[in-house]
């Protein structure tokens, strides 16, 4: 029997659904405390920086008009929240299930393939991101930061952002030996990206070479898509940004799947 290539295309079936449902059932037991944890921090950033710094900064030039700093920050930081929520779930929580609790091993003794398990984890982390983002959006609406109807379109885009970052995070999940490994991912990849993607200040403040790098970052394109909708406009380059995110998602998932297959191919 020949070993099948770890790069073969995903073999997917509907069996990802009971795995997703399993995570949902666990989460339902802990939803309220986990929600508080998920939205408290982004809201503190928003209030402290938005109102505090916002008073100093005043208006920011964005999308051809002057907007209050809090609106600028809120429209960027919602993408960061989607990214963080998805990344935490696809790293720490998925790693617990995969490596610590051996939940995946149990599942794979039933007729569920590894591919379906990885797909379920990916979609689950995307769902967690949407859930967090929805709660934060609710608070933003209550604070009257934006009330554009276009926010309804931002919502599925943020699902896409969550899915993209969960795909990328699953690569590192597949490579991890322990939880410490994820600290590198956060400090070396996510944190710098946060500062380079135009969340806290407009990207045209960046020196030209750095701006070039920032053009390649998925979070930049998430912000490019979502921010205009907060200002009741449509994104300038929806196709380009959408394709960049899709490329990161598809490429990320494929690599994550291949590396996870290698990990389980003992």
């Amino acid at each position: 029997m020949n070993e099948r290539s770890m790069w073969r295309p995903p073999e997917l079936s509907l069996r990802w659904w009971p795995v997703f449902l399993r995570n949902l059932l666990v989460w339902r037991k802990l939803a309220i405390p986990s929600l508080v944890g998920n939205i408290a921090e982004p809201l503190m950033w928003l209030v402290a920086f938005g109102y505090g710094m916002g008073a100093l900064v005043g208006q920011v030039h964005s999308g051809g008009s002057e907007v209050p700093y809090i609106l600028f920050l809120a429209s960027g930081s919602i993408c960061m929240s989607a990214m963080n929520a998805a990344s935490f779930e696809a790293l720490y929580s998925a790693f617990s299930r995969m490596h610590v609790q051996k939940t995946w091993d149990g599942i794979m003794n039933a007729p569920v393939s590894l591919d379906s398990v990885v797909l379920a984890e990916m979609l689950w982390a995307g769902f967690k991101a949407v859930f967090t983002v929805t709660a934060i959006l609710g608070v933003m609406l209550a604070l009257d930061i934006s009330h554009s109807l276009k926010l309804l379109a931002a919502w599925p885009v943020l699902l896409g952002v969550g899915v993209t970052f969960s795909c990328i995070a699953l690569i590192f999940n597949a490579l991890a030996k322990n939880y410490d490994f994820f600290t590198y991912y956060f400090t070396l990849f996510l944190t710098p990206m946060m500062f380079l993607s135009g969340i806290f200040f407009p990207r045209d403040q960046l020196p030209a070479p750095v701006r070039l790098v920032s053009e390649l970052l998925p979070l930049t394109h998430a912000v490019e898509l979502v921010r205009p909708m907060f200002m009741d406009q449509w994104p300038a380059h929806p196709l380009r940004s959408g394709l960049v995110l899709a490329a990161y998602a598809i490429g990320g998932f494929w690599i994550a799947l291949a590396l996870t297959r290698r990990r389980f191919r003992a």
Partner: protein
Amino acid sequence: MSPLLFEARNLAKRYGNTSVVDDLSFGIAPGECLGVIGPNGAGKTTTIRMCLGLTTPDHGSITALGLSMPRDELAIKAQLGVVSQFDTLDPDFSCAENLLVYGRYFGMKDAVIRERIPRLLEFAALSHKADARPGELSGGMRRRLSLARALVNDPRLLLLDEPTTGLDPQARHLMWERLQWLLQQGKSILLTTHFMDEAERLCSRLLVLDHGRKIAEGGPRLLISEHLEADVVEAYGNGALQLAESPLKALAARVEVSGETVFFYTQDAKPLLDALAAHPQLRTLHRPANLEDLFLKLTGRQIRQEG
């Protein structure tokens, strides 16, 4: 169709330069309990993993229930029940929820699973713990819950990897009772174990593995009578080791020394015991030869590196 429920032919698996499983063939007939015994590192777990399609063999083929691995992996697993060496129960779910969630992985409808849950909990002697989480259960209860979970899809064949390791005697006996009941119901079982009394009690046939190779195969009593004398007399204490070289030696068919103990293997223990009576300072134990003697004879008394 083959009358065997499960058949592995010429399985081989190497990791680097180490051969973990080497040209291993075996079959399981319907209603049979096949025991796989062997020291640590003999290839038992790798064999089970290959049977489940989790490890791809370098050579050989596996067919089960008229289907073949790895092509029909999921279809085969749909009819298997698996208890792995380490519990993979969901710590956040109650016992009942563990069964429900696991049943869904088989594509079963919630109503069907819910109908089975009370019977499964009763089987596991856990009816009173339906709402308890695995963390609140004893080791034996957790293993029985794992077994009940493996039965949620009403499988024809069970693969059990050391199901009683780490359990106290009460819990182990209860587990044996449950497995015997399953065999009476016509289930087939593939079992790996370190406990020779467990193998002797449950298994109709045994496979002795060492260094990935099959070194003996057959019914437990038959294997013992084929390879061993009927009786064993153990002697230990002051001067026991000298006996091994004394004329007494001629009264036994075979003499073995391990540590401070001398083992005399014989078809007729009477003359030997009479002679030993002249050495009252020695402690002696006369017993029938058992599977453990066979196991040690075949695989040696040395502690393995992995052990």
